[in-house]
Every structure is written in structure tokens, then in C-alpha cells.
């Protein structure tokens, strides 16, 4: 009893801070999502109406919301596997004993993660330029017609994915490198003694040992990629034809551009619901893979 009281007392400062700065705002936002808080309500609270689930109902019927969710899902579905592959590939290359100056490559691959997004996004806008861009110039050398990366609704999201993967793969690469370094060498030695080739070493030793790390990285990346915002905000402003409007971008516009905080909170909670369900699903699938 006494011990548990002491425990609570020690935990109290942190709990109070979490309650005040996390749970209260979340509850406030939940309440806000049930109202039509807007500019008029900011002027005079008497203009605030309780609308129940109307904001959610409106969103369910809104073409903009479904398109934003579709855009975001497209980004996640293509971006996450690409990002994981790039991270793992880079980690294997940097970790390989054949690589010279691994520290140099590690730093170079990690550099995009720590650069300012806005600055590199501007550079990418030039790389992706239809007429003067390096990317189209390279494609042209291969005989491919110029792609209107940021002007064609079919190509804008792939361009954003390319950029986001380039910007983020270094972070997961570091985690993978750490995990690779933690694999005991005797496992490989044992495998080699049993006559395993390089591919078998990779698929029978490296991959299974990396699995917990993979699970962690996949879950973190999915949750992060669902919150796509800054890339389209800087590069395309949601265009062309709204093809790069993500859920978070829609929320930002609704809340901070049009000042419809009620609607914006509802979007935030829907996104929260989506991320939680997808993560729960992932955990379940991963657990089932691990279990047998």
C-alpha cells in the first residue's frame, strides 16, 4: 500500500503533465468536433451550435475527404514498402564488409533526414521541372518522353512519394544498421559451416533476426506516412486537381485556413481512427507471423 502510494507520488508529476497537456486537449478537441466552431463562434460564443455527429456525417459524404483519404492511402501503400526496401538495402550496403568508408555513406544517406524539408523540397521542385529538370533530362537521355511530374495528376503523387522516400529512408537505415550489428557473427559462421551461400545467409539468418526490427520500423513508418503534410504543402500545394491533398492537409486547410475548427477536429479524429485501426491490424498480422 505504502509502496504503491509512493509509486503514484513519484509518477504524479508526469501524470499531471500528461493529463493537462495531452488528455485535456484531446478531450477538448473531441468536444470541438461535435460543434460548428468557426469564425462566427470566435466572434461570439452564442454563435456556436452543438451539431452532434454532423461534422462526421458531412465528412462521410464529402468527396474531398474520401479523395484525401485515397491519396493518403496511395502514399502509404506505395511509400512505406519503398521506404523499407530503400532503408534495408542501404543498411545492408553500408554494413557490408566489402564497402569502403561506411561512415561516409552512412552520413551521406542520413543527411536528407536532418536537412530542412522546405529547402530540399525547393531543390526537388527544380529536379522535377518538366522542361529544365534533371530527372526529365536523364529520362530523355534514355529516350523517355518528358513527364510532367508536378502538373499531371497521375504523376504528382508518385513524385511526392519519391521525394518522401528519399527524405526519410536514412532514419530507418540507421535502425536497421544497429539491428544488423547486433546479429551475432557465430550465427553466420554456423550457417557457413552448414554450407549456406550468401543468399541463404541473408534469407535464413539476417531476415529472421531482423524481423522484430522490421515490425517496429513498419509500424512507425506507416503511422508517420499517414500524417503526410509538409511535402505536398511545399511542393504542390495540394494540386494538381487536388491529387496530392492528404488528410492532414485537408485538416490544415479546414482548420487554419478556413477556421472551421469543428470540422477540422472531426477530420483529426477520423485520421486518428484510421491510424489506430491500421496499426492494430499490423500488430495482429505481425503477431500471427511471429507466433508459429
Amino acid at each position, binding site marked *: 500500500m505504502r509502496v504503491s502510494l509512493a509509486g503514484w507520488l513519484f509518477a504524479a508529476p508526469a501524470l499531471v503533465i500528461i493529463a493537462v497537456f495531452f488528455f485535456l486537449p484531446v478531450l477538448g478537441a473531441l468536444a470541438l468536433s461535435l460543434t460548428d466552431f468557426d469564425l462566427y463562434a470566435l466572434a461570439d460564443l452564442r454563435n456556436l451550435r452543438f451539431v452532434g455527429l454532423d461534422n462526421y456525417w458531412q465528412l462521410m459524404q464529402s468527396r474531398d475527404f474520401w479523395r484525401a483519404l485515397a491519396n493518403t492511402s496511395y502514399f502509404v501503400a506505395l511509400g512505406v514498402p519503398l521506404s523499407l526496401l530503400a532503408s534495408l538495402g542501404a543498411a545492408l550496403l553500408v554494413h557490408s564488409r566489402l564497402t569502403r568508408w561506411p561512415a561516409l555513406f552512412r552520413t551521406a544517406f542520413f543527411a536528407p533526414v536532418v536537412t530542412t524539408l522546405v529547402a530540399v523540397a525547393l531543390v526537388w521542385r527544380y529536379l522535377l521541372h518538366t522542361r529544365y529538370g534533371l530527372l526529365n533530362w536523364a529520362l530523355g537521355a534514355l529516350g523517355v518522353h518528358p513527364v510532367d511530374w*508536378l502538373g499531371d495528376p497521375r504523376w504528382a503523387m508518385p513524385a511526392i512519394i519519391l521525394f518522401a522516400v528519399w527524405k526519410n529512408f536514412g532514419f530507418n537505415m540507421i535502425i536497421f544498421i544497429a539491428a544488423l550489428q547486433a546479429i551475432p557473427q557465430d550465427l553466420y559462421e554456423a550457417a557457413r559451416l552448414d554450407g549456406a551461400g550468401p543468399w541463404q545467409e541473408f534469407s535464413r539468418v539476417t531476415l529472421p533476426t531482423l524481423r522484430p526490427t522490421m515490425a517496429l520500423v513498419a509500424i512507425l513508418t506507416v503511422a508517420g506516412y499517414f500524417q503526410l503534410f509538409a511535402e505536398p504543402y511545399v511542393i504542390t500545394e495540394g494540386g494538381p486537381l487536388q491529387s496530392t491533398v492528404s488528410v492532414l492537409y485537408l485538416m490544415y486547410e479546414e482548420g487554419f485556413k478556413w477556421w472551421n475548427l469543428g470540422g477540422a477536429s472531426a477530420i483529426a479524429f477520423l485520421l486518428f481512427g484510421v491510424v489506430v485501426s491500421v496499426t492494430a491490424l499490423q500488430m495482429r498480422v505481425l503477431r500471427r507471423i511471429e507466433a508459429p
Partner: protein
Amino acid sequence: MLPSRMPGGCAQLPPLLAVLLALLCCGCGPSSSSHRRSLTVWAMGQEGEVITQLLPEFARLHPDIEVRVQQLPWSAAHQKLLTAFAGDATPDLCQLGNSWIAEFVALEAIEPLEDRAGRSAVVQPADYFAGIWDTNVLGGHLYGVPWYVDTRLLFYRRDLLAQAGFAEPPRTWAEWSRMLTAIKAQVGPERYSVLLPLNEFEPLLVLALEESDPLLRDDDRFGNFRSAGFRRALGFYREAFVRGWAPPVANTQISNVWDELGNGYYSFYISGPWNIAEFRRRLPPERQDTWMTAPMPGPDGPGASLAGGSSLVVFRRSRHQEEAWLLLEFLSEPAVQRRFYELTGDLPPRRSSWSAPELAQNVYTRAFRQQLERVKPSPKVPQLERIVTEMRLVAERVVHGDLSVDAGAVELDHTVDAILAKRRWMLARGEPAP
């Protein structure tokens, strides 16, 4: 240990009190002893930098008023003003984009100024361009005084137009269409005749304002985009892309709009007064006599354009409204406005300020002078920016062929009616708010 310390602690109390008292006196000292009145002014972007250069003169005239200028970047200004309103920290005098005025009137954040303007010897409504002045008048009250004006008109390549066989810029849409067709025929498939960036609402808004049908109807309760006028404007806009006059791009895809006009990638560009200085600075000397400005052509005769720019407003919660008005009057004097033009290139809103030689004899601003007599306010509702953004999005879909002009107009009315729903509810309750 503790008891022995107690007396010492008690003995220290009086000095502590003295310190507290001293602090209190310091806190209230300056305001009670000095008669200087302080005035907080917020201004955005370049204007925020330049206004400080005009202030020494004001300080000479009013040595008892201390002006504190805070500069806001345009990109954060709107957000910051709303936050300041919510946090009860609004400035005394503020520069406000005139399309934001309805919003701040809805918040009841800014003070009506018609009484002060009526008594003023400096601010004379008749001297201001009517369309610009009108953007500040809501429900019979004056909420701001125009500081500088902004409108959109044609920047064009004189030489390319002459090559296509036209000596004068267009006056009507029909003439303009002929020119756009002729130029496109000359420059071939790789180049265009006009730039209408798909991520800007202004070009289409200008075309829509040129029609006599208003954009909203029934006291701005509903969208009026199904009107014949708007459909004509949207039809003309669509035609520009369908017939290859305009490249279907956003201006984030044009790496440099000035160079591209210089290169002849397009010959017409609808833009605003700040670009006069940009074209002068960015085009090489040998290209300088190839570009010119012209008023907007209209459906049948010289066209209207939008009435943009910034106004000076006095916040309702300000305790220095008298001083704020004095500074507002000072900044509205023609002589000060001319100096302001020299410093910024921002065009003055008063006709008398335009008699200055540097404006009257400038060949590039001449078209703006003519256009300013024909500017039209956009609907004065707080939701304006959202409405014109929706208009742009629908126009983009029409250009891409996803929607016909008529279907686009119907969809736009539907969206805008939903945006205005709360406004209708407010009006039905008998609220006087806009």
C-alpha cells in the same frame, strides 16, 4: 536550527516589502509620469519594413506619440491576427488586406470610421478610386481607409503582338481571342499566348467580375455561379486552355514567370503592380522596350478588374483610437503616399496622389491608372477566400475536361451554398453581422 533562524527571517521582511513596493512603482512609473502615448502598429511584408522610414516625419509632427511597428510576414499575417483577436492582443492600427475586412467585421474586431472620416480634412472619400473605397464599406459603415491599391491587368509583349499583326492591346474579349489565336499560330506548339496559372484564382475572378452578374445573390446568401455571366467567363477561361492559348500549368511549375515572358513562352500575363518593378529588374536591358501593360479587355468594351490592396484599420479594443486615426490620416496624405510609392512601388489609392510626375509620366503605371477607375469589389463575405478557392478548383477540373462549364457552375453553386449555410443562419437570426 529553525527557531534560531526565525527572527532573522522576520527582520528581513520589511526590506522585502520595500523591494516589492519599489518594483510596483517601477511598473506603473512610466505611464503615470510621462505623457508620451504609445501606439502599436502592425504592417505586413515590405510595407512593414518601409513604414518605419515614414515615421520620423510623423514623430516630428506628434512628438508625444510613440509608434511601435511590428512587422508580420504575409504568409503568417492572417493566422496571427486571428490569434491576436482570440488572445485579446490586437494592435491599435493595422494594415489589412481589403478582402479580409468582412472577416474582421464579422468578428466585430475593427472600429467603424465614418464619423472620423466625416470630420477629417485629409481623408476625402471622393478623391479615392470608388471601387477601392467601396471594399471598406459594409452595411453602411466604413471600416478601413485604403492605403495602397492592387489590381490585375495585362502584362504583354509588344513586339510579339506587333509580329502577329496587332498595333494596340485588346479592348474586348473578341479582339483578345483573335490576338491569342494569331500569336499561338505564330509561336507553334511549344509556346503559348497567355499564362493563366491554374493555382491562382485571380485571372478567373477578374474575368468573372467583368460580367455584370454578381457572384453571390440574395444579399450574398447563395452562390450565383449558374448565372449566364459567370458561365460565359468560365467558358472563355476554358477556351484559353482548350485552344492551346494557355499552358495548363500552375505557376509553381514555371520556374521564373519573368524570364518566360521575356523568352516569349507566353505573350500575355495577368498580374499586379508589383511586377512592374520585377520586370524592370529581371529582364535584360535589350528586352526592356518589348513589354508593356494594358487595362483588362472586357466582354464588350474595356473590362473591370478586381479591387485589391490593403487598408488601414483601427481595432475596436484599442485604447488609442484617437492616436491611431492621427497616424492613419498622416499616412493618407498625398505627399506621404507619393513617398510611400517611391519606397515600395505600391500604387496610391487617391487620384490626387497620382498627379506626381513619377506616376503620371510612368508608361507602365498608366494602364493601372485607367484600370483603377474600373475596379469592382468582390463579394464582401468572410468566406470569400474559400469561395474563390473553390471556384479555382472547379475551374481546374473544367480545364482538365472532368466537368463541363455548366456542370462546373452547378457544382460550384452547390459547394458555395454549403459554405454560406452558417451565414444564412446568422442572417435569419437577425444578426447584423456580414
